[in-house]
């Protein structure tokens, strides 16, 4: 290998080498951290909410006019919705995962406990809640119709039964056996018995550190004259049901407005819009940086080939094959890229530490840097290929041509 003479020749023209090396170093540092952030965001966006998203949609019904009885309208609506063709089930809700809006509270194992044992989101549902959300009951039972009561916003009475997620059960009772246990949602109030455990249901807040801790309580809870419904359609019939639901509701009671009809897929898209935007922007930055680096290498290598045309002809005259010339430029690029990558590796970890300190970002996993090394090596070799091929085509007769 010609590494030593190439390196010593490079050291004679340090500026070009330093510029390209620095570009490679910065690219590695930024791209590896940006890739990690993108992959984190994508992973975050893939998190399951725990509910059936493909077949469900939700909407608000806002009543107006004197004599609008929200309770009776709600009961009539639920009956109507459950009877619509293509509907599997429907329930009234206060929130859904990923909506960034809902209720939360602390759960304690003892009354008047100073600090809650866990935080949890609260979902108010009726006996059709589990079916409408599409939740999987793994232990215990569903709510019975007689357990469901109307609640007002200021009602302090906590329901006596609750269904919680497996994650919350594990948090409250790490040794297991949560089913049937009593917990306190109100420090001053009576205990609530855990009657069921569902596999998974996210809280409405995507950044919550208790995102998997959810509690379902048996209650109807309209906000004044506003009721929110969640409808689960038969697989493949969601859009068809959605189209007809507004008209059916208005026909049943014209003293209201039906609004914010959204599929859970839309809720997910809205919930993760920030993450998606971040992933797209960082993706564009990664592509732009890699392209600029590749173009920098192409430009510098092309310049060197043009500058050394006679030198290449001399090398050919002295016995270098085309392959030798090709290999020379690839080796030269390999050396510059490697030096840049070594610096870039250190910079990548330094940048990660800074992001951790300033933005509480997670630590860059170690394997991102070696993967970045490999990618940038490959990029460098691909970028230099064109100029190197041009160099390999320089004829040996050029050595004898007068300057």
């Amino acid at each position, binding site marked *: 290998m*010609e590494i030593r*003479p190439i390196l*010593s*020749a*490079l050291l*004679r*023209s340090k500026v070009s080498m330093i510029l390209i090396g620095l570009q490679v170093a910065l690219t590695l540092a930024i791209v590896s951290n940006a890739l990690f952030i993108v992959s984190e965001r994508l992973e975050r966006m893939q998190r399951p909410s725990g509910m059936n998203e493909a077949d469900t949609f939700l909407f608000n019904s806002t009543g107006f006019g004197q004599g609008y009885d929200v309770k009776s309208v709600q009961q009539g609506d639920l009956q109507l919705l459950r009877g619509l063709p293509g509907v599997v089930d429907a329930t009234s809700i206060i929130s859904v995962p990923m909506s960034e809006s809902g209720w939360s509270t602390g759960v304690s194992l003892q009354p008047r406990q100073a600090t809650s044992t866990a935080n949890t989101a609260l979902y108010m549902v009726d006996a059709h809640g589990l079916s409408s959300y599409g939740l999987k009951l793994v232990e215990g039972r569903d709510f019975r119709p007689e357990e469901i009561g109307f609640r007002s916003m200021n009602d302090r009475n906590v329901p006596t039964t609750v269904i919680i997620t497996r994650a919350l059960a594990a948090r409250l009772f790490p040794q297991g056996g949560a089913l049937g246990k009593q917990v306190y949602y109100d420090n001053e109030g009576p205990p609530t018995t855990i009657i069921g455990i569902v596999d998974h249901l996210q809280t409405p807040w995507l950044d919550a550190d208790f995102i998997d801790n959810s509690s379902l309580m048996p209650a109807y809870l309209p906000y004044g004259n506003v009721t929110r419904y969640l409808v689960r359609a038969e697989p493949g019939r969601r859009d068809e049901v959605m189209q007809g639901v507004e008209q059916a509701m208005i026909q049943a009671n014209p003293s209201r407005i039906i609004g914010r009809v959204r599929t859970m897929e839309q809720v997910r898209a809205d919930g993760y819009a920030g993450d998606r935007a971040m992933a797209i922007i960082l993706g564009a930055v990664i592509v732009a940086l890699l392209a600029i680096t590749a173009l920098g290498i192409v430009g510098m290598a092309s310049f060197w080939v043009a500058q050394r045309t*006679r*030198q290449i002809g*001399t*090398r*050919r*005259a*002295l*016995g*270098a*094959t*085309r*392959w*030798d010339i090709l290999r020379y430029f690839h080796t030269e690029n390999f050396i510059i890229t490697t030096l840049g990558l070594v610096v870039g590796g250190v910079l990548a970890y330094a940048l990660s530490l800074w992001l951790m300190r300033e933005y509480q970002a997670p630590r860059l996993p170690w394997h991102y840097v070696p993967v970045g090394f490999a990618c940038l090596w490959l990029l460098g070799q691909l970028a230099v290929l064109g100029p190197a091929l041009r160099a390999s085509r320089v*004829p*040996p*007769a050029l*050595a*004898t041509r*007068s*300057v």
Partner: protein
Amino acid sequence: MLTMTHLQKVYRTHLIETYALRDFSIRVEEGEFVAVTGPSGSGKTTFLNICGLLEEFTAGQYQLDGVDVRGLGDSARSRLRNEKIGFIFQSFNLIPDLNLFDNVDVPLRYRRIAAGERKRRIEEALARVGLASRMKHYPSELSGGQQQRVAIARALAGSPRLLLADEPTGNLDSLMARGVMELLEEINRQGTTIVMVTHDPELAARAHRNVHVIDGQVTDFDSEPMLVRSVRDGDASRAMA
């Protein structure tokens, strides 16, 4: 050492054909020192390029040290060039970013010679041209004459059978030119065949034999050389007539 018979080199564009060499025949025996002279554009450099396998020819035959070079691929030509031929260029053609040691090392690396053997050859070649103490110097730190000596050392390090010199003193003053010429003569005395293209009649006179080229053809030999005898005996005589 080398035999060219009825060699032709034509440069073609879509409009014209230019004959750089026309029915060119020559034979150089091992150990000879031949000077090739002729006016500018006569075909001297084309002859040297073909001689050194730097260019292909259009028609005719060329045997270098018993190898018929016609039809050889680029890699085979490169190998042959590397193993059998040493080049000395008018502009020295040293690589400015390499020190003298690494400059002399260039052709040896392409021959895949082991590092120890390369080092021995480089030191020996640089000592032979009187520059052993300046191995770590760069070409820009040397005079023109010294640079040409390095180029000669580079050519010698590979122990070539044939040394091709293209106006080796063209860029040197008379004192330095004399020194380089004396070095070439000494190399020739030690058995290396030399073909030198030159404009300088004084230098040409110091060669064993002069070959004059005009319009791509050999027009004159200055003595009763071996090559004339051999050409008369063979097919090439028609070309020389």
